[in-house]
């Protein structure tokens, strides 16, 4: 079947749809880039603003507490707590200012800022674990999810521990905008971007199955001395692989464009996540990218199998697009956490269409572990292809037109 695969791949690759798909993938991946292209120092300024807002809030709290000339023991302790936080965030701002002052120069030392932030983060963790989290004024880290829980505090500590160990800036610091590696990772973590990429992929798959119908070239394929199911598998593989390669080409192009414009970044930058309810871990964005690609590959396989089945039954591109679109729309949290769907969500392919929440354990809907998710996706692919096989065993029906 390699010959059939090669032929299908070559034919599909030469259609204008592939070029359109490549451009669509590029546009989806560049939405954030275009959105912030005219903003200068976006990350560093925002992060500094986050620290400043924290400082302002602490100042306000302290001023209010000091108005009470005869504070209770609890208020006195709270004032001391706030003052301590203020001292630490002051150090952070000072280090951040020094850092910003040297930004753009050839070499800067990220350790002083990371050290001060780590100190503050450890304090916040200790206080949160002691049940005094409500007394804290937390700061947001640009590019990271904000989480006031003990787990969220642990993640912040681990992030800055790792950055300090690697002598690495927080990704928004010392950069005008996110460098290429971090930019692509942010896009891969964005649910909107991933679902749009899948939508483009569905269009490519639907077009792939409609090619013979559109060009009136189904005859030779139907006459081949080979099983129709193996021919179908060849088409699924060709359409799926071409879609993924088109996406890979778009990702590569975006990487080059962002890298040229905003710097390359490092694939060793850490991503912090919580694999269980009380532990945190790191993964490099390079490793995350590979895992993401693996899961996306399986997503593509499920969608290709679905497209094959729907096309086989309906011979309608519209129906193929609609079915793929439905699966993608069902991949949002609102649907997967809805009353009737919630208990079944972990068995649905849609629950695993966004690799980010699955890999980083950030989904708000019920999921199996990553291996379980892989099994679900493979299982659905096998079921859908099995239905294709059954359909092809059915006796041919007589056409009503010659």
């Amino acid at each position, binding site marked *: 079947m390699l*010959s059939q695969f090669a032929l299908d791949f*070559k*034919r599909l690759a030469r259609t204008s749809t592939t070029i359109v798909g490549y451009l669509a993938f590029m546009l989806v991946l560049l939405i954030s880039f275009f959105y912030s292209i005219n903003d200068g120092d976006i990350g560093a300024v925002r992060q500094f603003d986050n620290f400043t807002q924290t400082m302002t809030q602490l100042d306000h709290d302290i001023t209010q507490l000091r108005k009470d000339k005869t504070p209770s023991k609890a208020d006195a302790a709270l004032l001391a707590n706030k003052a301590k936080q203020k001292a630490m965030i002051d150090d952070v701002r000072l280090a951040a200012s020094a850092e910003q002052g040297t930004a753009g120069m050839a070499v800067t030392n990220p350790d002083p800022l990371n050290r001060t932030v780590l100190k503050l983060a450890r304090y916040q963790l200790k206080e949160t674990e002691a049940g005094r989290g409500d007394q804290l004024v937390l700061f947001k880290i640009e590019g990271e999810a904000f989480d006031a829980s003990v787990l969220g505090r642990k993640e912040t500590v681990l992030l800055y521990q790792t950055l300090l160990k690697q002598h690495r800036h927080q990704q928004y610091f010392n950069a005008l905008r996110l460098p290429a590696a971090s930019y692509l990772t942010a896009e891969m973590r964005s649910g909107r971007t991933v679902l749009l990429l899948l939508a483009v992929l569905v269009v490519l798959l639907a077009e792939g199955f409609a090619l013979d119908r559109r060009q*009136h*070239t189904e*005859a030779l394929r139907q006459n*081949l*001395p080979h099983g129709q199911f193996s021919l179908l598998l060849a088409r699924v593989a060709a359409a799926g692989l071409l879609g993924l390669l088109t996406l890979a080409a778009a990702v590569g192009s975006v990487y080059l464009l962002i890298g040229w414009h905003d710097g390359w970044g490092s694939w060793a930058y850490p991503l912090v996540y919580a694999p269980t309810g009380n532990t945190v871990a790191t993964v490099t964005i390079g490793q995350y990218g590979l895992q993401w690609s693996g899961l996306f590959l399986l997503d593509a396989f499920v969608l290709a199998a679905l497209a094959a089945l729907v096309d086989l039954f309906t011979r309608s591109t519209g129906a193929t697009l609609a079915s793929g679109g439905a699966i993608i729309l069902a991949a949002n949290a609102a649907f997967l956490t809805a009353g009737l769907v919630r208990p079944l969500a972990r068995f649905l392919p849609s629950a695993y269409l966004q690799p980010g929440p699955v890999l980083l354990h950030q989904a708000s809907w019920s999921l199996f572990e990553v291996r379980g998710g892989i099994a679900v996706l493979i299982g659905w692919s096998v079921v859908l292809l099995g239905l294709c096989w059954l359909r092809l065993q059915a006796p041919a029906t007589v056409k*009503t037109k010659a």
Partner: protein
Amino acid sequence: MLKVQHLNFAFGHQVILNDLSFTLPDGSITGLVAPNGTGKTTLLRCLCGLLPSGPKVMTLNGIDLYQKRKAYLGQLFFLENSNQLYADLTVIDHLKYVRKMWHSGVDLHTTIASLGMNGYYKKRIRDLSLGMKQHALLAMYLVADAQLMLIDEPLNGLDPTSIRQFERIFAEQKAAGKTLLVSSHQMDSVARVSDNVFFLKDQTILAEANTGQDMMAEYGRIFLGEEAHA
């Protein structure tokens, strides 16, 4: 040898083929003649399983289409017309593909040379004239090297030189033991190459051996009701 027994086919209530039975021996060329819309292409589609006919109706060298579809199709080649070639691929792409899918050992460049396609075998189908496409299609038949060739109006768009070239190739294939069923409206050509002629009329076949009779006159007699001239 293709053996057909009691082949029936209808589009809905419209009967197209009614209880056809015939045999196509190895090393023979059979012309298939009928006016447009009579059912020639439908018959060819039935013979290769594109349209359903039911089990135990057709066997090719003893192999039943419905029992061993792949083995049956491996012994025949049929592509309705050159419009069904892949426009974005080259002639050589098609020939390589057919050779692999039919597990054929035919040398591509010999075939290309024998059909005079050296000048355009690397061109995409969309860039070829109708005559060139007809040559590419015939080349696919030769490369498939199948026992049974079902050929639908192969001479459309061909100049007289090419028609003679095609007729020569048909004769060579016959000499090599192949079985050819060729539908055509070119009665003079049918007369030159066919051993037998199937006139498809009223959903059934009137088979005639080619004994040198005037095929155009036969056509007129069968389909137009014209009296044969003495």
